[in-house]
């Protein structure tokens, strides 16, 4: 079957594919669909119809099962690209830093006339006539702190200057730089070593710094001891929802008969190798024999580093069979995503890992801890959360809990982007820094002469906070009593509970700063475009609502706003939030709801036209029934019309 297609598949590629298939349980070969598609695309440049048929046959699937994936994940291409393929990030932070100008300049330089994306997501790639270049706008490349960014081939290019395109194209090396010295307000746990002169990503460097010591300690403990430590540490998930990690772990029954899986959700950021040790400790605590690291498809470098780290750890017997003589077997595999934001949702991620479209599952009944990967108990933890496990073992749960504030323990990586002087990553004790300190001290303040307009404190889905707002926050005092304080936006501490009390959320830790030069309708339209593009399309409110909201804000931007638009926008948001399968519903509704709510004057200014009359006239059934009693006035006697006629309007 597999050879019935006309494409010649080289033996080396076949070998790699077989190796990829071997990473998943035999009865779940379908999971290998995405790895195989990646391999095919790396080799052939795109996924032809032959490729679909070949992979389907290889995995014993129907061709439609593969077509479903190729068209769901934006990274998979069905057509050839140019010799050099350029991906430009168009999401908010990059757009604010000029990525649309960058796109324009790039197109002019490489000779591409980009078609306006009239029908959204269908074939967004434009290829130059000579076939040397191709270009596309993509959604967030997860380096908002160094915006604008683009990927040239597989190389990430940060802080791109839109005016020196020639340099950008000539110089093919990555320009990623890490800040070496931490800011005094930082508390580096996870980023302890990043940026140090002699720091490398290999295991020798890691071992010199005391790597895998905590794994050794953990293997000597009982499983419940580790779970208790994590519970005591008060560690909350770093993915967005802020759910207690220890509580999540305790959902796995100690006497579970089915295989237990741990999934590391690295569908976003990439903070170093600590996570591998954290994963191994967590696997041991959960009695999980297999862990998968789901890493964003846009991080080919990160995936390579991780593959290498796993190989080295295997050589040192930190993973594999009978690790460090403990009798515990554990395997860790990398699974690359392919550019779908929804796969950051834990059940969407599980579906994706099973080789399907990343459609989140309904909960109940599909709580991952009960019916997760392959319908087995599964813990999905954010990569940053897992990194902390190592430090909890090292410090002890109670000591770790002393970091940060009560119920908001530990450190947290926040990424400041947008209109600040020094955007970037900062690792802070949760709640030890206020928004004001973060912006004005750590991120170097606003650009000269600018005033703060708004802050999105936890990724683009978090509700926006307006400068000048007063917030009433209850704060716990060290003696346990809580008092209510009124404060400005600058005084809000960066922790889960305070930001929630302020009506937003800590979310993913991505802080976007907007100054007074920004048009809030434009900003919202950019966010809406992201969510309309990333909605998986499974459930009705989010699928239809996200695109509708985007179409409205787009029309408003182009001068077609009608008076009802702000009201309609808010009510669409209300009809999505809380009524969808997953939290994406809130994620796409909150920006619209909060932008329109907090900046009514800007939206009203762009919504001036009268609502066009409905055609044909619509009546409620009651009105139709009562139609006979409605007085009909001949049009000529309508005073309004007469006046209009006199004024020469009609």
């Amino acid at each position, binding site marked *: 079957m597999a050879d019935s297609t006309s494409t010649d598949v080289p033996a080396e590629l076949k070998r790699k594919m077989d190796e990829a298939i071997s990473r998943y349980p035999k009865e779940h070969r379908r999971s290998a669909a995405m790895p195989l598609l990646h391999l095919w695309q790396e080799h052939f440049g795109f996924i032809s119809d032959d490729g679909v048929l070949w992979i389907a046959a290889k995995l014993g699937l129907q061709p439609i099962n593969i077509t479903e994936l190729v068209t769901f994940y934006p990274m998979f291409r069905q057509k050839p690209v140019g010799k050099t393929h350029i991906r430009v990030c168009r999401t908010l932070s990059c757009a604010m830093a000029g990525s649309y100008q960058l796109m324009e300049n790039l197109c002019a330089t490489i000779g591409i006339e980009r078609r306006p994306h009239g029908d959204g*997501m269908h074939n967004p790639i434009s290829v130059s006539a000579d076939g040397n270049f191709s270009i596309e706008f993509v959604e967030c490349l997860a380096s908002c702190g160094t915006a604008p960014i683009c990927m040239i081939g597989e190389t990430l290019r940060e802080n791109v200057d839109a005016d020196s395109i020639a340099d950008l194209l000539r110089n093919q090396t990555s320009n990623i730089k890490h800040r070496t010295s931490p800011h005094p307000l930082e508390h580096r746990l996870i980023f302890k070593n990043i940026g140090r002169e002699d720091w490398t990503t290999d295991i020798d460097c890691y071992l010199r710094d005391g790597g895998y010591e905590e794994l050794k300690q953990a293997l000597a403990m009982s499983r419940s001891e580790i779970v208790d430590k994590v519970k005591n540490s008060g560690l909350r998930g770093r993915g967005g929802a802020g759910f207690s990690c220890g509580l999540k772990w305790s959902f796995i029954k100690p006497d579970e008969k089915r295989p237990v899986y741990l999934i590391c959700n690295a569908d976003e950021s990439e903070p170093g190798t600590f996570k591998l040790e954290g994963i191994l400790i967590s696997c041991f605590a959960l009695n999980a024999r297999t862990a998968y690291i789901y890493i964003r498809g846009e991080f080919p470098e990160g995936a390579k580093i991780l593959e290498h780290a796993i190989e080295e750890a295997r050589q040192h017997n930190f993973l594999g069979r009978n690790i460090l003589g403990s009798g515990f077997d554990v395997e860790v595999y990398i699974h690359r995503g392919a550019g779908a934001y929804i796969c950051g949702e834990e059940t969407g991620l599980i579906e994706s890992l099973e080789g399907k479209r990343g459609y989140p599952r*309904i909960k109940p009944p599909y709580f991952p801890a009960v019916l997760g990967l392959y319908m087995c108990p599964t813990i999905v933890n954010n990569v940053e959360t897992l990194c902390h496990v190592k430090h909890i073992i090292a410090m002890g749960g109670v000591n770790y809990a002393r970091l940060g504030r009560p119920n908001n323990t530990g450190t947290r990586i926040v990424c400041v982007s947008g209109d600040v002087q020094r955007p970037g990553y900062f690792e802070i004790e949760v709640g030890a820094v206020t928004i004001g300190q973060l912006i004005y001290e750590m991120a170097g303040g606003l650009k000269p002469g600018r005033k703060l307009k708004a802050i999105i404190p936890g990724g683009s889905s978090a509700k926006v906070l307006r400068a000048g707002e007063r917030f009433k926050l209850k704060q716990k005092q060290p003696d346990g009593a809580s008092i209510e304080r009124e404060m400005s936006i600058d005084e809000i501490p960066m922790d889960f509970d305070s930001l929630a009390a302020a009506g937003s959320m800590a979310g993913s830790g991505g802080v976007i700063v907007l100054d007074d030069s920004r048009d809030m309708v434009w900003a919202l339209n950019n966010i809406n475009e992201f969510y309309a593009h990333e909605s998986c399309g499974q459930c009705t409110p989010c699928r239809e609502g996200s695109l509708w909201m985007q179409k409205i804000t787009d029309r408003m931007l182009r001068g077609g706003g009608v008076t009802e638009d702000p009201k309609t926008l808010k009510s669409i948001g209300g009809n999505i939030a809380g009524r969808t399968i997953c939290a994406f519903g809130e994620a796409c509704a909150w920006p619209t709801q909060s932008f329109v709510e907090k900046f009514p004057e800007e939206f009203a200014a762009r919504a001036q036209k009268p609502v066009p009359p409905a055609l044909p006239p619509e009546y409620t059934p009651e009105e139709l029934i009562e139609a006979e009693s409605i007085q009909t006035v001949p049009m000529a006697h309508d005073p309004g019309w007469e006046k209009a006629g006199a004024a020469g309007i009609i």
Partner: protein
Amino acid sequence: MSDQNPSSQPMLNVQIDSVWHQFPKGTRIIEACEQAGSYVPRYCYHKKLSSPGNCRMCLIEMGFPRLGPDRKSELGADGKPLINWMPRPQISCAQDVAEGIGVRTNSPLVKECQRGVMEFLLINHPLDCPICDQAGECRLQEFSVDFGTSQSRFLEHKVKKPKNAVLGPRVTLDDERCILCSRCIRFCQEIAHDDVLGFVDRGSYTVLTAHPGKELENNYSLNTVDICPVGALTSTDFRFKMRVWFLKETKSICTSCATGCNTIIGTREDVIYRQTPRENDAVNSCWMCDYGRLNFKYLEAKKRLLEPQIRREGKLVHTDWSTAIAQAALQLKQFSGTEIAIIASGRMTNEELWLTVQLAQSLGTHYIDIVPRRGRGDDILLSEDRNPNTNGARLILGSASEPGANLLAIADAVKSGQIKALAILKENTMHLGVPLERLAQLPVFIAMNILSNEATEKATVVLPACGFVEKRGSMINGKGRLQRLNRAVRPPGNARDDWEILRDLIQAVGGGDSLLSIDDVFRRIGETVPQFAGLTFSKIGDLGVQILQMEELPPTHPSDEEKIEQAVAIQARRRAVRSEST
């Protein structure tokens, strides 16, 4: 199925719209609400398929019993538990009832949710109801009336998607009407075991399709049209033929195999427009195969026998019924029982078979049997036995051997010339292995059938009869269930109801007494066949009655079919030899 045996399961108390009800464990909330009289609208949920929970139309408010400090539920003034309502609406299609839960199906929040979902579903919908085949039985239309609003706030361009897409030989898709509920995809995966449909692209641009070059062509493809809640999937055969509200619906059964799927026949003014499955968990769940569904077209064929005919001076000529019956009786009575044979059909109803037995008795013949009919079955619905009433023949012909076992002996007797008079009822002689020339030489050859064929051309009397949609009657399916056929259309021309033809023939040959209606016939069967005792047509009901446990029945003889095939092969060889020698 759960309500068939409620006593074995614990009953749970559930409050629905302020009234407490009891349901067996395992009842879906959405089903419980419906049973309690509070219908919850739904698109993606189908009780025979898995629940993806994607349409969000069945959102309800739900709550759990409020627990006091002693962990026991607090009771209200009415002595019933108080309920803590969850702030977020929940879908009712994916959760089973639990003890003490509360459900609100018509609260302001629920209504707001329903209005919201309806609006979302319609913004990109083409609203082409006037030319849509689904109009009149469309959930979007129905729920718009019940749960939607009369206005649209949508001012943008709608998303464009493929229209008129041919998904397979029998199904046409309009993607713009599709609400992406995934019922069809799940049906193909879970019931038809043919994973051929899927979604491509993403978000609001998502499109239902089959992989290019692959078709939705399995034998169950038209069920996707039935379960499509909107006008996206349409039957290529039925498309644009008739507005559904003009269709008269007649409950009946499919007669294309021994499964006997329950059906609704849609007709208007004696024309059949479509056949759709009717739910019966004891027979066909909610499905039927495409072969059975479309197997009514032959009734409108050009070859349809419309007039009784008799052979006069070597030619078949039209006549009236009394002449045809008198002629047939006269011809048959010339011979003694040992010279007469009757070949009946497993496609005949119990009543027709019983009358056939009466005819045989009047004529004194023992040569009577049906023609077995076999094909490849599947593990879904299609049975290997393509006769719908083999079990009826078993009971009513009352012979010791399997239906069809005497067929070879009869054929031999015809060939040897022992049989002088042959009556063939609703069957094609090609199954008999008797050459046409031999049949043409028979002094008496009476053919009762629907369509003309090579054999009816050779008959001495031709009696035009009814198809399965044109008559009443009963049949026993392969699992021993007695079911009813109902008349959906009148027979064309001068074709007559089979039972009346047989009754008149019996009376003309001098046997039998007055049978005024088919109900009389049914009652008479009950007097001789114990399994029918005490039953009437109305007692059979729409869903049938189980009257046979299949263990009671003798095992089928697969060799019957082989024997016939062998005989036919031998016959063919002989003919070939003969044609060479001449």
